[in-house]
């Protein structure tokens, strides 16, 4: 599933307040375990349901490295291969668990131009049935056009 954004994204077309195309990630056990292992996170709460439930969690849940990865992907799916991310800051809320899609949304909160480069700050939100899973901001740069 990919966002329907035309590339290259033109920095001069962007405005504060613009929304990014939303993205729904169907979260499954496979998505969670694949992300945990690809990020080399072997904590049992990310692959062992019994263990996770003994810790008080409803099920296995996504590790933060994978959440960061999906936030990063959400931004570059929109901004394209010429964009460069400088900062990803997130606050974790409820867990991302199997069977609850994560809905990613974003909005441009600032744009600064310095010579031929734009620095863009985007607010990002990933929500599921529990509410906010991750909220935060991403700072990226895009070349001027």
């Amino acid at each position, binding site marked *: 599933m990919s966002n329907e954004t035309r590339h290259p994204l033109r920095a001069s077309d962007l405005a504060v307040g613009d929304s990014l195309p939303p993205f729904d990630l169907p979260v499954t056990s496979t998505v969670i375990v*694949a992300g945990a292992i690809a990020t080399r996170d072997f904590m049992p709460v990310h692959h062992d349901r019994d263990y996770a439930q003994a810790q008080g969690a409803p099920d296995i849940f996504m590790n933060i490295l994978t959440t960061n990865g999906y936030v990063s992907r959400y931004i570059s799916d929109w901004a394209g291969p010429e964009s460069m991310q400088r900062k990803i800051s997130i606050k974790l809320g409820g867990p991302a668990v199997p069977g609850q899609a994560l809905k990613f949304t974003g909005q441009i909160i600032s744009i600064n131009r310095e010579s031929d480069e734009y620095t863009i700050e985007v607010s990002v939100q990933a929500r599921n049935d529990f509410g906010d899973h991750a909220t935060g901001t991403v700072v990226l740069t895009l070349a001027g056009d």
Partner: protein
Amino acid sequence: MTDEQTDPLRAKLERYIGKPLGSTTPTEAPDKVNLPMIRHWVDALDDRNPIYLDSEAAATTRYGEIVAPPAMLQTWTMPRPVIEGIAERGGAPNTSTENAIGALDKAGYSGSLATNSELEFERYLKVGEQLHSMIMLESISEQKSTAFGLGYFVTWVTTYTNDQDEVVGRQMFRVLKFKPANPKDNS
């Protein structure tokens, strides 16, 4: 202010603050930045940004060559896990040197929940770069009552460098270390 009478554990943890968390020297990533791990990550997250695997496409961008996904920064220096006993260690990948996390695990605060992460990238990493990480424990909160149980918020900052001692990125990470509540006891 820590009151040793009411929270001796917190008082004991005080000595870890401002010190390296774990190793007192930078830890070397088990592997250099490499294509197999990038491919594994790209497939796991279904991230099709061509700069991560397509050298021809990457050559046409500002990067000029394949670069690693920026969010993989932390992945490169994740410690090699000892699978046996990982559950009993609260998910700690190995029996690390004595540190605040180990002290909390031992005291029964074996649950871990990440609450905040701030990743900063100086630039994207190239294949073949050898990373090193150094972790400093920034702060430990007072004991808090949370939805998961009693716990402490532990904040550390990791600085990532390459073989040339160039800082390529940083990460602030905050984790809640909590005493898991037994659901059966709560009814």
